């Protein structure tokens, strides 16, 4: 993602009409206007300061904390070696929350992609009224997560909830969504799917860009709807799929609000362990138990995991993504 973005970062008029040259091409020496360069640094200075303090500085600090025993009361940090990282493997809850989160992401991301794509394809086929449906489908995304949680807490109630009442109408005995450890994560997936419309909009924008003549030619050649979907739609929007998979995966691995609001709001710890998400446990470690060292180590482990997963997705995805630019 980033490398393309950087390539895309071609500044105003500095690469006149041409993409960056091949690897063998010698770099041209760019002449900078001193005054202009200084002004440029002045303009980006707010970001540089913020980055140095709240991102880069904070990362170094975080790394330091993860290798020390930080005591909030006295504001002191004593070296702890790798004890905090060892703790990650000793504390079974860390691994439980990690596997819960990975399981959730594996379940949620494909469903989100599929559902958002179905919705976008439906919207793409309707003329008048598309705006109305798009608005209706988008409203859940505008709802604050805390309001969503307050409603779904009652909708998902195993005995009296509307969802099980609805399932009963078609003869299905609904599960105890919020109590049964096996159904905790599907409950959160359901809430996430309700707010899937951001992904849908991205797909819709991509679908609108697929030239209609491709479908016309294909249907003249006798390709049915399924074939057209597989050989035209999917390749033509593969860039959007790729982008959504990466973004949704990163978001899923950091799921906090829903799990916290439904299960870990109060400190009773009565909720099933299968509802313990990584970000929630990290929060509990840091801000309920004030184990800053362990929490920082957890954060770095999460960062590593996200990096590895994203790297694999990018490597794997690049083989499937159809880049229009490659033709030139």
């Amino acid at each position: 993602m980033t490398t393309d973005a950087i390539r895309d970062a071609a500044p105003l008029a500095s690469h006149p009409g041409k993409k960056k040259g091949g690897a063998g091409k010698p770099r041209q020496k760019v002449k900078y206007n001193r005054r202009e360069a200084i002004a440029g640094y002045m303009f980006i200075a707010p970001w540089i300061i913020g980055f140095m303090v709240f991102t880069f500085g904070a990362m170094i600090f975080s790394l330091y904390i993860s290798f020390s025993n930080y005591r909030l009361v006295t504001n002191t940090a004593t070296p702890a070696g790798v004890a905090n990282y060892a703790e990650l493997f000793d504390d079974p809850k860390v691994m439980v929350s990690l596997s819960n989160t990975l399981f959730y992401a594996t379940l949620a991301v494909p469903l989100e992609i599929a559902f958002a794509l179905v919705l976008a394809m439906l919207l793409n086929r309707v003329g008048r009224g598309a705006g109305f449906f798009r608005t209706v489908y988008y409203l859940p995304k505008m709802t604050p997560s805390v309001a969503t949680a307050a409603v779904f807490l009652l909708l998902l109630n195993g005995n009296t909830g509307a969802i099980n009442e609805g399932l009963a109408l078609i003869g299905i005995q609904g599960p105890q969504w919020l109590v049964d450890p096996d159904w905790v994560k599907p409950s959160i997936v359901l809430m996430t799917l309700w707010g899937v419309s951001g992904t849908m909009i991205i797909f819709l924008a991509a679908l609108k860009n697929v030239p209609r003549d491709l479908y016309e030619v294909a249907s003249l050649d006798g390709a049915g709807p399924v074939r057209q979907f597989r050989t035209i739609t999917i390749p033509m929007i593969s860039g959007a799929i790729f982008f959504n998979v990466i973004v949704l995966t990163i978001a899923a691995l950091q799921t906090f609000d829903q799990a916290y609001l439904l299960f870990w709001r109060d400190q009773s710890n009565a909720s099933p362990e299968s509802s313990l998400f990584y970000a929630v446990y990290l929060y509990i470690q840091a801000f309920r138990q004030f184990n800053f060292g362990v929490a920082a180590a957890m954060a770095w482990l999460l960062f590593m995991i996200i990096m590895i997963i994203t790297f694999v997705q990018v490597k794997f995805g690049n083989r499937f993504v159809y880049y229009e630019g490659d033709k030139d």
Partner: protein
Amino acid sequence: MAVTSSAPAAVGVKNRENGVQKVRTTDPVKNRWYKPKSIVARIVLWVVLVGFAILFMYPFAWLLAASLKPRGQVFDNALIPDTVLFSNYLEVWDQLPLISWMFNSIAIAFLAAGAVAISSSVVAFGFAYFKFPGRNLLFGLVLATMMLPGAVTLIPQYLIWKQIGLLGTWVPLWGMNLFGSAFYIFLQRQFFLGLPRELFEAARIDGCTYWGMFRRIAMPLSIPSFIIVFIFELQASWNNLQAALIYLNAGSVEDFTAPLGIAYAMTKYSPSAGGQGDYQYVMVASLVITLPMLLIFAFGQRFFIEGIATQGRKG
């Protein structure tokens, strides 16, 4: 994701200055939509669309109904309450300090949105207009920060605010927005790149300062993308539970933001925590904090849609 760059450039800008952008030649009107040919397919399409619309709207209807019910009936799932209690809407203000929560949330949201929209715009102009050594590297760094999970910097940021003595104030909930934010910088920069460079050269010849170029030309022209950034951050801030939990949870209940307050109310009324199950107040409060967002969407829909579609194109 280069495929995405073949889309019309973000935010109504038709064509990028430097011609890197390839402009699609398909007739846009013809390409806009195509309806199914057979009448049966059209009916099926509409039934499915309406069915999904009902599914998406149901929780809102349920919420509205529940907010009007007396204590014992909140769980009955009736969309038309047996007993309609408009008094819930009056009592909630006594039951919960909702008015202060709303005030805190509104103030923080506007501070957060204003700060990030202005700062990101300044930084984006720096990256879009000026040539200086290391620019592309630095911009790559801006984009790379989007990958960083918030958890990594959470604790140090908390300790920084603690050190400065600002824990329990609003500042940690919006202060970092003064330094710009990666996605918004990207979005604003895309917009600035679409402005003709001659505009600035001409102003330069007329003796305009660099700041004047930003203030008098770039800013006024970038109002659409400015609004996108503003309302995106307004929503993000309004929705932000975790920061409020970390920075305000230890303080008094009146100082909570709306999301934190409702999370608190959910526990307060929960029978397992000694409450009496007065969930109707939670429902009223949830509805009250959702309405401003629905209103913003009603008025700013095209900005949201454009902003999100741009996200997909960021490649």
